[in-house]
């Protein structure tokens, strides 16, 4: 097997493990206040659109999002086209600006500590 094939196979297995694995992080109880305007908008879009299936970015009926290393363009692709049980969201449902904000929020979410290492809001 060629090295590239080995890497891709490992990637596939890793992808399944990372994507479908039940590993998930709890939501942070106290969030740092230093959110940008865009992240705040993204949070509102998330809580109106995504929170049902991925509560707080953790697993629900959808997989956890706060531990997935997806690049922004791939998040956009997934939102617009849907994947598996997840429906697609049109520009009417999530505008282009809202999608940019959503990506910023999801990337910000990944950097939060899990719930039992909650951050002090004054920090």
């Amino acid at each position: 097997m060629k090295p590239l094939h080995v890497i891709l196979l490992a990637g596939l297995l890793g992808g399944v493990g990372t994507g479908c694995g039940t590993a998930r992080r709890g939501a942070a109880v106290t969030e740092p206040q230093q959110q940008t305007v865009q992240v705040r908008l993204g949070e509102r879009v998330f809580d109106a659109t995504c929170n049902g299936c991925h509560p707080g970015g953790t697993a629900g009926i959808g997989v956890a999002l706060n531990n997935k290393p997806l690049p922004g363009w791939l998040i956009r692709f997934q939102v617009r086209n849907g994947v598996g049980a997840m429906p697609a969201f049109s520009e009417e449902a999530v505008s282009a600006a809202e999608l940019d904000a959503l990506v910023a929020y999801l990337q910000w979410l990944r950097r939060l500590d899990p719930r039992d290492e909650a951050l002090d809001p004054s920090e």
Partner: protein
Amino acid sequence: MPFALRTALALLLVASLAGCFRLLPTKGGGMTEFGGPRRVDSADVVLPAGYRIEAVATGLAFPTGVAFDDDGRAYVTEAGYSYGGFSSTPRLLRVESDGRTTEVAVGDNPPWNGVAFYPGSGPGQAGAFFVAGGHERPGQVLRITPDGETTVLVDGLPSLGDHHTNGPAVGPDGWLYFGQGTATNAGVVGLDNFAFGWAQEHPDFHDTPCRDVTLAGLNRTTPNPLTPDEGDRATTGAFVPFGTSTEAGQVIPGALPCSGAVMRVRPDGSGLELVAWGFRNPFGLAFAPDGALYVTENQYDVRGSRPVFGTGDLLWRVEPQPETIPWYGWPDFWGGVPLSEDGFEAPGERAPGTVLQEAPGHPPRPVVVLGVHASANGLDVSREVAFGYEGDAFVAEFGDMAPGTGKVLAPIGYRVVRVDVEAGTVHEFAANKGETNGPASWLGTGGLERPVAVRFSPDGRALYVVDFGVMTIGEQGPEPRPGTGVLWRITLDGGTP
């Protein structure tokens, strides 16, 4: 790592995600073993910095609500019923300062799903408790004095099905508001209702709309459990008894009381009025300091003749409009979105279709979407700077009932969330410690089990959390464990109310 390789790996990750829902087993928080007794340890609960939680009373049998009398003493309702076949006597208990409880009143029509206190108007005019519930007989709203004298204020509510009479809440206008859940998951009586046990006991029971509705003629055919012939089939439409089919254009007359609604009465029980309709199960009702009515709604399950996928529980801000009673979407919308759109068809199931030929209105959008199957139940709104988050709503999430209500990839709920109702954002407020979510029995800790209601103390400085107790989900369905309920109290900076 080269760009092409990173791209390939990312695409592989997405490809792997595509099949996750089908590949993974269901993993609800109730799907665990419980040997008892329940361990209670506030150190296993995490809160925002500066807050602390303590257990006020333990050993309760399925508590569902808390309210405070004119002297600020706490009272809890015990349901006297739980999904899973548990049925006993519903009770109103006073919680003494040492955590012991004193029985104030007992009922005969469980479950008692919630309690509110109507303050007295002055010396010699003591207040009274109002309790909503009922399932063994039609639903009721009761008035109970602090010395236990009980009067039926409202009777005959359509509470014999899946969901019951909920709330209540005292409005700033002095009226008593309460919620009434629907008989079914999505309008059609089906085999799931026989599994719950009520459809064979009340074979003529079904949902009743609050206003006239015109049907689209949706019918579903299933085996017929009402006849001994195993091959017998029954065809059933919406808003009609099991085994009754419907036609396009058929009008179902509206009535009051009705299913899936918020209604109100005067404190003496007179003047029943419709406030809003088109809900599935409006469980929690609370008024904010600005007079706004907030309502939590348990949304559709993936079960029965009309399963609906992916509908998170909702928090609504209800604007009472006596001249145009607002409709919130059940059984054809979720959160303002029609079920005819993509995304509501569960994998391997039939699409929900459309029940109504013409929607009775344009449902608004909710304040926020909460977790699918989280069972967003009781709520209250902070009004005191000494507690913080003034104007924010706090919602008790009972937790999923998987697999009976639908598949989940991880436990959902089992916590209290804070909703910034102005920004439309959800924040975890009280949850169990650990890297994963779940009830304490699932995590093996002494933390929260199934929060079912929250209520601020009269001075607003403490948030009381009613924890229903342990209910695991076995192969035969829910396995409720009486005597495992807890009343918790949360304060800021360790202060006591």
